[in-house]
């Protein structure tokens, strides 16, 4: 097994599955309810009969009572497509461990749960544009391929979530659960692309990956901070006052993301804070 998934972590994941709050229309019969009416045993609704409908679905009891031909509709059980939008911009290359490493582990965990839970799992790396992704796959046998794929991801380019989401939606994917795994440190903002995902009937889940140093920096000296992606320089003296201002701004940023997710009904997991990302992920999966 890849180092992206530790055995202990796998044991904890084994009892969980990826849950979506929405119902999605799958392409084949799956293990979860579909928003479409299907052929399962669970009754959903009636509708008038039109010529050409399958006569076997006519509810004759209703005809007897109402003297109208109506069809019985049942809830279709379809598979879930899990899209893992993994941020591979250069800013993810920082941190201990690197944020990209954490993002890969999250993606591996989610992918593992999806593949073992008969879901379709696709990985879409992005920075300023979409990268070559892991094509949608199903079945636990694809876990190894998924992990190998994730292991080969490298940090490069600038973050442009808006453009990445636009390109992702341009491929007209089937609505599904979209796990956005990113630090969300995008000058272009994160609200609009996530709103777009929701408007296209996807269910975004935010996995925000930050390094502890990015939330609570260590004091020390006069520095020129160089942005790894844009190259912009910020002269700062890491004294208590500056750090306090930064912490306030960072916490406000995190609170802003959390409030946004709550308002939109999106899932939100912070990886890299006080709580280890494994615990945070499992807590989310249990609560979902």
């Amino acid at each position, binding site marked *: 097994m890849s180092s992206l998934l530790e055995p202990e972590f796998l044991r904890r994941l084994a009892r969980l599955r990826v849950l979506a709050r929405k119902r999605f229309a799958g392409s084949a019969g799956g293990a979860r309810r579909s928003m479409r009416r299907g052929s399962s045993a669970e009754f959903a609704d009636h509708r008038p009969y039109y010529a050409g409908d399958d006569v076997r679905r006519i509810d004759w009891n209703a005809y007897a009572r109402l003297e109208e031909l109506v069809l019985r509709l049942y809830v279709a059980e379809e598979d879930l497509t899990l899209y893992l939008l993994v941020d591979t911009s*250069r*800013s*993810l*290359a*920082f*941190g201990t461990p690197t*944020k990209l490493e954490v993002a890969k582990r999250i993606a591996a965990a989610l992918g593992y749960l999806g593949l073992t839970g008969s879901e379709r799992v696709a990985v879409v790396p992005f920075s300023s544009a979409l990268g070559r992704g892991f094509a949608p796959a199903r079945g636990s046998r694809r876990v190894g391929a998924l992990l190998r794929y994730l292991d080969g991801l490298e940090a490069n380019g600038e*973050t442009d979530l808006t453009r990445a989401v636009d390109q992702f939606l341009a491929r007209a994917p089937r609505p599904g659960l979209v796990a956005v795994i990113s*630090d969300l*440190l*995008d*000058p272009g903002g994160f609200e609009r692309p996530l709103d777009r995902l929701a408007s296209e009937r996807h269910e975004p889940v935010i996995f925000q990956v930050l*390094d502890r140093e*990015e939330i609570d920096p260590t004091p020390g*000296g*006069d*520095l*020129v*901070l*160089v*942005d*790894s*992606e*844009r190259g*912009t*320089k*910020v*002269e*700062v*003296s890491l004294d208590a*006052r*500056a750090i306090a*201002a*930064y912490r*306030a*701004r*960072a916490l406000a*940023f995190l609170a802003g993301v959390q409030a946004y997710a709550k308002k939109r009904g999106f899932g939100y997991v912070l990886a890299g804070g006080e709580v280890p990302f494994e615990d945070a992920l499992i807590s989310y999966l249990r609560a979902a």
Partner: protein
Amino acid sequence: MGLLSPLALLWAGLLAPLVVLYILKRRRQPREIGSTLLWELALRDLRAERPWKKLIPQVALLLQALAILAGALALARPAGAGRVPAGARIAVVIDTSASMAARAAVGSDDTRFSRAIRAARDLARSLPPGGEMMIVEAAGNAAVIAAPTRDASALERALATLRVRGGGSDLEAAVSVAAERMRGSPSGSRIVLITDAAMSGELALDGRSVPVEVRKVGEPNASSDNTGIVAVDVRPRSEGNTPDRADVFVRIARFARTPADVYVTASVEGRGVVASRRVTVGPGAQESVVIPADLPPDPSGRAPIVRVELSLASAAPGEGTGDALTLDDVAVAPSPGVRRLPVFVVGDASEPVVRALRADRDVELFATTLTALAERDDDAPLDGLVVYAGPTPAEAPPGDSLVLAPTGESVFGTPLGPEVRRPQLVRWEESDPRLRFVSFADVHLAASRTVRGGLRPLISADAGAVAAVLVRPSGETTLLAFDPARSDWPTRPSFVVFFRNLVERARAHRAAGGVPPGRTGEPLRVPAPDGTSVTVTTPAGETMRVVSRGGVALVPTDAEPGVFAVRVGERQLFALRNLLDEHESDVRPRARFTVAGVGATVRVADRVETQEAWPYVAGALLLLLVLEALWATRKGAT
């Protein structure tokens, strides 16, 4: 152009921190991080919290720096003299009386005179094209020191020659002289009288058709308080037999509304303090102080010079009174011993000669020999009349001397002829001061030698000159080539008169040091042969050299009381200079100026009128601020 508040220029020092803020760059270690997005936001928060923001080089800063400079300059109140109408002529009359040496204001190092010069200089600089300026010195006598000219350098040179004089000033005469020279001047011309008005009474200024403008320097307040010596005399004491005992009489006047405690200290040059008295002088009052002192002559027979000095009771002696005028805090006077003339008789002078010399009560006879004189250790020349009877040294001594019946072949390089028996006196120089009231009409000589060479004959006989005068830079020698005892001259009154004339002449040379008396600030007129270098050491210790022209060396001096040591060749002279003028010691502005003559106008300004330029600078400041505002609003200054 000057600055009325030069200290305000310190505001320009604000430029330093301003520039430092721009050029100071802290060294920082570069560190790459994932994203600076949150740091940019945090620093924006910090800047919003701070009362200042990071300075960035921009045009606004340049404008603001210029605004600071202009503001500082404006607060310094740059000012220049009022301008002169184009083509007009201006006559500047500058008061150079002693009171102009008083300080201009309390706490200021400027004197009224220096401010007057500055005002005149400003007027010269403000001359418009075509304008001319002349300068008249108003001292005891009015003198035009610069004729009407537009040459700024000539005016500057003329101003540089001006000095405070020791006496008063005749402002009315000076204005009249200026008015005379301004006759027919174009419209707009005027006479500017710069004075401290420290004189009593009413001054009627007659500028004729030219308006007179009086500009006062000096402030009529506590800065004019003054205590000074207005009279000093040293007289021998009447009681006692010691001729060296003397009393120093000093009169001190206070010109102020408050009394003053002062020390009057008498000292002798080279010997130190003789005595000191503490005196309280009431406002507007005068006090006399008598200080007894022993004033013996020095080994050369030179009478001492007494120096009297005033100092504040609260200050150490020698620190002065710290009042408005320092010229009257010091006075010098010769001791009565100056009157007593030492006469050194070398050799065996005949009895009639000794008796004639003793006829003067102020003559002190000392008998000596050529050998004794040659063995003297003291390099100082004998300060008196030296009478050689018979042999003479090879060189003439400094000072005055008389040679009687010389025995050598020559006297001080002048050859003598053989003895002539019964020479008939035919001519004598009646105009010579030695022969004043002296006649040889019925004098008969038994014998005499004749004087050869280029000496000026004093008494001539049929055989030649029997008496002559040898004039040297260091003194005079009167040569009588005969022995008066071998004539009937001692029985004549003219004999005693001749020796009295000789002694008086030597006394005059000694008392005045050969330099005519004068006031402080007036040039020393030192008699000296043409081309002789005259060295003068001032009371302050400064030394200057002047070459004699036309028999007189004119040595310019500043108004400085005390003893001026003058050296002409080997001769050492002393010139004493004092203010001793209660009118000049009263430096309070009090003169009233009125108009004299028909058509004349007089305008009086209480102080030197300056045209302040700060409004222009302030205007420039406002303009800069407007430009800065425009730039900031139109160009989007950050």
